[in-house]
């Protein structure tokens, strides 16, 4: 009974989120029609520029469902980009090697943070705050200058356009097909995989059970510590992968990269209906959280006169709105009891 009610609260939020996305996008289409907001390519650009974020937000969602949080993802992204760039440019590593290094960095972060959270019972926030500063600091240890990636293999991955059968016609009637990059394909595969894992595997269900109520999960015989560790390791792995996708998109590494990314990932999850108290959340909702973030930034860039700070502020305000909404829904639920 309890479970169904809490799911309802989450469903409300998810519906609001999806509606909000469509309203925002439609408003953008009407307001910026002459600037090409209505073109299919504009919609696909949301995915192209946010592929990395989508993957990272998936990991964040899983950790948040366990009742934890990970604010180190932005720094991990920066560290991954910087290490990959540094290895390829200055140490002659191949692009494949860069992939392996990126994933290894993510896994290492996940393992250490997961161990500290799961086996030593330290607050996730403190652990990942330290991780955040550690990652950012290590990035500047590697290099304080910007490194652009010029590896041919890497660039061929980054610029490989996959054309879709949809598109628009130019003024002269020439067909311009819409395209996506391989990063989008990877991100979407990850999305589908995570949805399946969270819904149908033992691990996924354990994550929900632990987030809902740790003691009853323990009484059911679930290994709470192990599941938490796995969740953080998966989150770290996805942060590494997302970081690499981010590198494919930006083709460079620098210290200030992906600053505030953790905020984007957390707000995407929260806006998508993941409860901060844990136990409730859907990867599918997070997708819409990411899309809303993308829409806000492309609306503000298209508008042109507002400073980029407005993206952060709008997103923070939106996050605040959804957090308050959650709090109200939860307190309403308590009153009903």
């Amino acid at each position, binding site marked *: 009974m309890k479970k169904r009610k809490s799911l309802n609260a989450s469903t409300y939020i998810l519906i609001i989120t999806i509606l909000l996305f469509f309203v925002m996008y439609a408003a953008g289409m009407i307001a910026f029609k002459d600037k090409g907001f209505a073109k299919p390519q504009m919609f696909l650009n949301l995915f192209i520029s946010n592929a990395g974020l989508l993957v990272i937000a998936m990991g964040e969602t899983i950790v948040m469902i366990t009742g934890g949080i990970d604010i180190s993802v932005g720094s991990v992204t920066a560290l991954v980009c910087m290490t990959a760039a540094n290895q390829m440019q200055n140490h002659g590593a191949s692009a494949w090697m860069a992939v392996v290094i990126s994933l290894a960095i993510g896994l290492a972060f996940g393992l250490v943070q997961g161990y500290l959270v799961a086996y030593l019972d*330290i607050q996730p926030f403190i652990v990942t705050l330290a991780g955040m*500063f550690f990652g950012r600091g290590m990035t500047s240890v590697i290099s304080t200058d910007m490194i652009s990636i010029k590896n041919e293999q890497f660039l061929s991955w980054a610029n490989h356009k996959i054309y879709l059968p949809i598109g628009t016609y130019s003024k002269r009637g020439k067909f311009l097909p819409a395209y996506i990059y391989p990063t989008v394909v990877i991100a979407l595969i990850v999305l589908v995989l995570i949805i399946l894992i969270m819904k149908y595997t033992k691990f996924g269900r354990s994550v929900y059970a632990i987030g809902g109520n740790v003691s009853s999960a323990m009484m059911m015989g679930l290994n709470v510590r192990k599941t938490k560790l796995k969740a953080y390791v998966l989150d770290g792995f996805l942060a590494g992968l997302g970081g690499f996708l981010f590198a494919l998109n930006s083709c460079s590494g620098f210290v200030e990269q992906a600053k505030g990314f953790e905020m984007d990932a957390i707000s995407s999850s929260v806006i998508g209906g993941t409860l901060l108290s844990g136990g409730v959340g859907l990867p599918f909702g997070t997708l819409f959280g990411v899309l809303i973030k993308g829409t806000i930034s492309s609306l503000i860039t298209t508008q042109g006169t507002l400073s980029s700070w407005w993206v952060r502020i709008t997103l923070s305000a939106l996050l605040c709105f959804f957090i308050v909404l959650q709090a109200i829904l939860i307190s309403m639920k308590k009153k009903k009891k």
Partner: protein
Amino acid sequence: MKKKLKRLTEMNLFMPVICLLAVLLINVITTPGFFRITMNQGVLYGYIIDVINRASELVVLAVGMTLVTAASGGQDISVGAVMAVSAAICCQILSGGEASVTSYQNSMILAVIAALAGAALCGAFNGFLVAKLNIQPMVATLILFTAGRGIAQLITKGQITYVRVDSYKTLGGYLGKSPVPTPIFAAALVLLVVWLILHKTSLGLYIESVGVNSTASHLVGLNSTMIKFLTYVICGLLAGVAGLIASSRIYSADANNIGLNLEMDAILAVALGGNVLGGGKFSLMGSVIGAYTIQSLTTTLYAMNVSADQLPVYKAIVVIVIVTLQSPVFRKKMKTLRGKGGGMRKSKERAAVKGGNQV
């Protein structure tokens, strides 16, 4: 009974003091003449003065952070951003919207009050989310952590506002002919006021009891919500004070850099001071000692040619070591491993340092 209590309080401050002494010892070894103080143009000079001076903002922040930690069992990570907001408000009012001025455009008192009010408002916002809506403190303050600098940018219209007036530099410089920098006085004053409030009223006791058990405190008739809210407002206000000191040092409002990464230092100071990050009993003195320890550590690292960008790496390792030491699970494990012994503390530390290096 009294003797026992006394011994306990001594125990609580024992570790922080040892930490401070250890860092100072390293300082003496790496920089000979660390404790040398010279008079130059009627002003005191020396490494140690510099450490105490630079630590002032941190002390002020750590005091606020201690209260928040004690009452709500969470940390306010927006303090750095709130510092930027308060500095931005103050400078913007003083300059009347210009990028650089050589005389005040508005009264100084108005600017300071507005800046502190703005900072307290930020604190109240955090407090409302945490105390009233029961949101995890660090998630609630994450909102201002990200948005705060953006707001500060908007206030200063994206530029660095300079107030090139001598009297504005007083707070971060020297008061009249005093040989001691003003920030030291400011930090001492803040400490004194907060200490008096906590010990002359029952607020200190209330904060501890709410931190230990919020529900039980509510049942004995304490307004837990109000007390938590109050600690966040105080924390915001103190962040505002720290922002003013920092802004006065550079006689400008640099929204991007004022108080950057200071939230980490403040949390670290609280933890180093022997306060449990999960809330409950607290020791203001411990946090203050922690703050000075960190500033000495920072100075040491700078002396060892570590750049400002790389500092967080070392601080992150220190944080992890401290929280691991504090973790109940870790303590239990060590107890079963070693049994109860006098030399336990040292072995604990060594083990944790090893663990930290692996991170």
